[in-house]
């Protein structure tokens, strides 16, 4: 710590009115072990220096020693709120490399799971950012409704958070017989809850005062910093992989890309709220039409990718997730690189938080929806 301060003092020089504050690694609003070294003047933020790596788990190194089906379960632990999307990304990458066509049923199941996962993630985001802004009750309402989705997950695949449901060539289990009924019940219930969420926070005058015009990220900056997902779309950067590079059953459904243009905290909030409606509509389009068939194609006992480099992009709840696999033809990958949305998003914070107050920084962080293992990997 002393060295870092020394370095900052010598390189960046702290002016007489400025002081340094460590926000984190243990701080209620950093949602994990993220440390932001803030340079403040009074309450005004002058510089944000993110220090990451407190829970770096070396997943990229670990994958080099694992076979392809084995490494999927590690991606659960990166962005644990979009674990199924991460699983799917790796599976799609492997399937593309092997030129395996998965059954239609699998595509539908995967897409429904994606959207349920997105809803669960956005619910957690909604309640956690409500808590960041001081509305503690919101936290419990969000978690209460998220339980229903987790129950659906648990019934079908046995896990609530780290699903490990996608496997190369399909999914691990067939859908539970109750699945469709449960999803429909949930959607019916949840459609009544979102207006409640809106009344509680989105329409609230205090919340609007806190968020409108705060922390504006322009479209150019969003592209330059690689800010994707709802955060990027709020700035007008059309970056929805589901729309531009559709995978699984996304080509079959109609949905709008939730977009904003202002790029402030409120727009980021609104885009995510809109995205919940879009997810619901996608699920509604698919849930009744799941085709019969196999839930997985038979793969070889030992999966070996052909020599070469493969890149697969999917849209997680946070933005664009990329898997870059370099294969040398063996059963273990030569190198796996994960392009995680949180990593790129995080570093745009310094750019937009300058000149705002600490309370605004917390609001900005809340609407960036960071998951720290996603950054640290």
């Amino acid at each position: 710590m002393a060295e870092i301060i020394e370095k900052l003092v010598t390189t960046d020089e702290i002016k007489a009115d400025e002081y340094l504050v460590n926000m984190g690694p243990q701080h209620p609003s950093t949602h994990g072990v993220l440390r932001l070294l803030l340079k403040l003047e009074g309450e005004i933020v002058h510089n944000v220096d993110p220090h990451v790596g407190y829970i770096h788990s070396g997943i990229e190194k670990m994958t080099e020693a694992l076979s392809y089906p084995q490494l999927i379960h590690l991606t659960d632990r990166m962005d644990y709120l979009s674990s199924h999307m991460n699983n799917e990304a790796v599976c799609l990458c492997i399937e593309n490399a092997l030129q395996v066509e998965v059954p239609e049923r699998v595509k539908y199941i995967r897409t429904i799971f994606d959207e349920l996962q997105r809803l669960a993630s956005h619910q957690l985001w909604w309640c956690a950012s409500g808590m960041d802004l001081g509305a503690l009750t919101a936290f419990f309402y969000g978690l209460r409704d998220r339980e229903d989705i987790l129950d659906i997950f648990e019934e079908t695949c046995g896990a609530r958070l780290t699903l490990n449901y996608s496997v190369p060539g399909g999914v691990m289990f067939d859908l539970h017989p109750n699945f469709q009924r449960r999803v429909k019940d949930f959607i019916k219930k949840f459609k009544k809850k979102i207006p409640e969420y809106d009344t509680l926070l989105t329409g609230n005058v205090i919340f609007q005062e806190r968020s409108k015009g705060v922390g504006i990220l322009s479209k150019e900056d969003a592209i330059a910093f690689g800010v994707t997902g709802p955060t990027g779309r709020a700035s007008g950067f059309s970056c929805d992989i589901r729309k531009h590079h559709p995978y699984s059953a996304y080509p079959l459904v109609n949905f709008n890309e939730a977009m904003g243009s202002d790029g402030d905290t409120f727009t980021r909030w609104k885009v995510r709220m809109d995205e919940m409606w879009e997810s619901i509509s996608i699920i509604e389009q698919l849930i009744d039409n799941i085709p019969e068939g196999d839930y997985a194609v038979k793969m070889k006992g030992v999966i070996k990718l052909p020599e070469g480099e493969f890149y697969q992009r999917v849209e997680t709840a946070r933005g664009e997730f990329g898997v870059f696999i370099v294969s040398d033809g063996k059963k273990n990958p030569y190198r796996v690189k994960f392009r995680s949305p949180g990593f790129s998003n995080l570093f745009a914070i310094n750019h937009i938080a300058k000149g705002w107050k600490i309370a605004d920084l917390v609001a900005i962080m809340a609407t960036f929806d960071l998951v720290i293992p996603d950054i640290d990997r």
Partner: protein
Amino acid sequence: MTNEQLIEHLSNAYPDAVAKIGIQYPEIIVGKEMLHAFMLKLKSDPTLAFDYLVCEGGVDYPTYMQVVYHLESTTHKHFLVVKCNTENRETPALDTVSDIWPTAEFHEREIFDLMGIVFNNHHDLRRLFLDDSWGFPLRKDYKDDIHVVER
């Protein structure tokens, strides 16, 4: 531009670079001397306009190291993979592209941290995840007797 046009355009403009259509995307391997000028051209040329650096990652090969850039143009929607090799594995160094795409600043810090590739002219090349005394864990010859158990 379609992939073929893109490859043709690039190979005409840069005969030194090796351009081909890979398994998924058009790929181009550029020399490390021309990397920065080439990248600047990719960003600023209106017909190319690669303004979004999707991903930047390093790969450790037996005799050299490679940095792979995945680029996309948000206006033309075309995609390009740029690869650049270092001279050797002992003192790997490339020019930074963080002045072209700000997001590269942190990707390069990550690559420096985990693979030990130095990026020239990077204005803030500190280690990102690990502390300074740590080795470079993503290199293939990385040995850690304490944390890594080999079976």
